[in-house]
């Protein structure tokens, strides 16, 4: 098991390099936007990865509330944190893409706005975990995750209707996609998913180590060993 991690890390690095090459040199040039469109190959996979991670957090939170399994709680924390990392990338690359193409940094684009609200909810989740001094923080965090999940469809609908009343540009475009572009998109998605896995695995081991250290510390203070 221990050897699997470095192997995964190396494979991920190779995949990311290959995906980068595909995105910059192999993918065809987009007709209207030009080279800038290639941001798409980083923006969209990051979004999918972030949403997947947040979904994992929801499942882990529910499992924790039902079973009180501390490992489920560790998974919840890890997936939230890594999810916020990828979500941040979506929110940073989105406006960088929008500016040259549509002339504006921000718009109430439904996907981007939903991503923003998700980011806010999960940052507040991480803040709660860090600031809470209750011994039952995992339970509180799990409850917050459920509230967040309930909120997301409502956010989506409210923005959707808002946009029908106040027409706004759509970032990222809809419609069909050139199969060659789809191919590059999927390769980048695979690469970033592997990166998310690497991050999560490392962070999970870190979390277990942290809990070990905390336990050892409290054991020592119980025994009265001078620190």
């Amino acid at each position, binding site marked *: 098991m221990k050897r699997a991690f470095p192997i995964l890390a190396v494979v991920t690095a190779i995949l990311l390099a290959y995906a980068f090459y595909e995105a910059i040199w192999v993918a065809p040039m987009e007709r209207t936007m030009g080279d800038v469109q290639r941001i798409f190959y980083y923006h969209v996979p990051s979004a999918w990865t972030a949403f997947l991670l947040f979904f994992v957090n929801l499942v882990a939170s529910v499992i924790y*509330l039902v079973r009180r399994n501390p490992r489920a709680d560790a998974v919840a924390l890890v997936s939230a944190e890594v999810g916020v990392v990828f979500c941040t990338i979506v929110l940073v690359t989105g406006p960088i893409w929008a500016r040259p193409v549509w002339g504006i940094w921000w718009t109430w684009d439904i996907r981007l706005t939903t991503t923003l*609200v998700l980011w*806010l*909810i999960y*940052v*507040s989740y991480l*803040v*709660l975990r860090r*600031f*809470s*001094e*209750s011994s*039952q923080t995992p*339970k*509180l965090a799990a*409850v*917050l995750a*459920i*509230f*967040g999940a*309930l*909120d997301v469809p*409502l*956010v989506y*609908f*409210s*923005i959707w*209707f*808002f946009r029908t*009343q106040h027409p706004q540009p759509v970032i990222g475009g809809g419609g069909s996609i050139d199969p060659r572009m789809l191919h590059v998109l999927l390769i980048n998605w695979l690469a970033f998913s592997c990166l998310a896995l690497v991050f999560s695995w490392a962070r999970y081991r870190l979390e277990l180590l942290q809990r070990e250290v905390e336990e050892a510390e409290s054991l020592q203070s119980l025994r009265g060993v001078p620190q």
Partner: protein
Amino acid sequence: MSLMRSITWATLAKDIRLEWRSKDALNSMLFFSLLVVVIFSFSFDPNAEESREIAGGLIWVAFLFAAVVALNQTWARELRNQVLDAYRVSPAPATALFVAKALGNFILVSVLEALMAPLFMIFYNLRALGAAWQLIPVAILGTWALVVNGTFFAAMSLRTRSREIMLPLLLFPISIPAVQSMVEATRIILSGDGAARFWIVLLLTYDMVFTTACLALFETVLQAE
């Protein structure tokens, strides 16, 4: 069921009585609400045509700040006197306590809004060009949306560092669809341009979803403190 109702009623009556006897907190909140309206009026020139358009948003942001101030002290009294511990060991259902607290906050915030709304109307020369009666369900549903989650998150924030900032930090992101609905509905009703029905329905949905969630999960939060 009637046990729940009597506990809820007793807790609510106690809160109102205590609040009424020491009017300090209430008075300072009322003054704060007044200050908010005045500051907004200075910042967003009421004579400008644009301000009338955003008046809906301004009012609800002001209500939001007033609500946070009210919500922050909602559990303070219970904490001071170990009431929560007593509640935890008693056979009383946790939901009764939550409903009582939420209703108490609802009444308190409604009082604040009843002060601020006329002031806004005066400063901004507001007239409802649309169906004015619709403002009532918007106000009720909107206030409940803020109060129900606010009371819940206030309980979650009890044992955190910087408790006062934790509440808005948790409340604001989750409240975004509700705030958008309140603001849009108010804007539509004031300007008479369009139908607010969708937003009112969305607010109603929001309220039902989160009232259910709060009632279902409050026991967990209470035990977790």
